[in-house]
């Protein structure tokens, strides 16, 4: 997952030594000038609406960008334009060092979650016309910034893997008796929404508790576990084991039902509802002491 997502990043920002060398403060300034020129040009050319975006810039490896700042870009507006389109235009036309992850551009790969106008959103799924300008585009909060809009996703992936997100069996079945393991329609309906997660980390970034408590599994991982724990085909022992992971002190109990995750989820997964259901499951299980 992580390698797959890291790929576009290198594509976006080719580590061309010549280019890096050019990023001295003076060159940067000149570049800024170019940018303005181009902007004027484009404005004159299009003679129409432009979109004002303010993009977060930071790069620990470039002296002029070590101090975080916002760069302004004026991008020609087109009907149906998304936030991702606008930053791509800015990168392609104004500043090729502008760095962000993206891949499928259709809300499936989950690489381009940004903090847009104070809310976690998928760049490719957010219409410019729905936003107030200037549009402030920042990297996801609560994750360390690697460069510009690119954040370190390692912690998020660690939490996802911590819930052992796979369907498994206690014993390997006899090969001669292998049978299709079918899921009932009703059960599929139950877990349907939880399967839609695209690992974009918007929820984790929006969560107040995950921000303060690094060990908290977070909404995405718990939702992932929900998908398996609620699957009828999961064996009793495995489900028990899964619930034990979830009912750790830093598991489901840390959720304070602020609904932040549910509100930002680009795939509309009812995350809070799933976490609450798992809390009740865990309590029920623990109360069955007879």
């Amino acid at each position, binding site marked *: 997952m992580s390698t797959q997502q890291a790929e576009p990043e290198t594509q976006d920002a080719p580590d061309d030594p010549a280019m890096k060398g050019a990023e001295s403060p003076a060159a940067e300034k000149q570049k800024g000038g170019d940018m303005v020129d181009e902007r004027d040009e484009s404005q004159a050319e299009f003679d129409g609406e432009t979109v004002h975006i303010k993009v*977060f810039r930071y790069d620990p490896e470039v002296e002029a960008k070590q101090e975080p700042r916002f760069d302004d870009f004026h991008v020609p507006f087109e009907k149906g334009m998304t936030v991702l389109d606008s930053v791509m235009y800015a990168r392609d036309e104004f500043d090729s060092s502008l760095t962000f992850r993206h891949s499928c551009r259709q809300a499936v790969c989950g690489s381009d979650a940004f903090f847009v106008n*104070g809310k976690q959103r998928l760049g490719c799924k957010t219409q410019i016309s729905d936003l107030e300008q200037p549009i402030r585009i920042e990297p996801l909060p*609560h994750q360390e*910034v690697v460069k510009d809009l690119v954040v370190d996703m390692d912690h998020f992936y660690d939490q996802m893997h911590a819930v052992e997100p796979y369907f498994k069996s206690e014993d390997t079945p006899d090969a001669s008796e292998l049978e299709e393991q079918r899921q009932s329609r009703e059960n599929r309906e139950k877990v349907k929404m939880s399967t839609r997660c695209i690992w974009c980390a918007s929820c984790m970034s929006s969560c*107040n508790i995950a*921000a303060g408590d690094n060990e908290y599994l977070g909404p995405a991982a718990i939702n992932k576990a929900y998908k398996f724990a609620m699957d009828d085909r999961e064996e009793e022992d495995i489900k028990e084991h899964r619930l034990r992971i979830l009912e750790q002190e830093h598991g489901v109990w840390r959720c304070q039902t602020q609904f932040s995750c549910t509100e930002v989820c680009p795939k509309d997964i009812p995350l809070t509802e799933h976490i609450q259901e798992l809390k009740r499951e865990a309590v029920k299980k623990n109360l069955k002491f007879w």
Partner: protein
Amino acid sequence: MSQSYNRGLVEDFGRWKEFSAGMWAWIFHKFTGWILIGYLFTHISVLSTSLGAAGNEAAIMSETDVYTTTLQGLESLFLIRLLEIGLLAVAVFHILNGLRLLMVDLGIGLEAQDKSFYASLILTGAITVASVPTFLTGVGL
């Protein structure tokens, strides 16, 4: 998530305009909770004056025992009355939002969680305002 530099956190109060209903509910619930547990400790301390009052039948009958005089002395202060109204508001909000949270825990009405938060705010305001006359009777300014 250690940050290599400070770019501000989402829950910084400088960004309060971006807070969602659920986040406000959480902040208020926690804040009122701190007040209520703090009050419980002071409440028991004040009521502990009854330990000094008990046994002195004459003072109790003439209502000059230390418990009665302490409580009535406090109640004669306008400030205390104001604080009591504040306490009522805090308690009512904590109760109403607490009911909301219990519903959320039972998985009831999750889609209306923001509306129920606004409802508990409005109800708290209404109940508090309606109680002001009762709380201010017999106090000199």
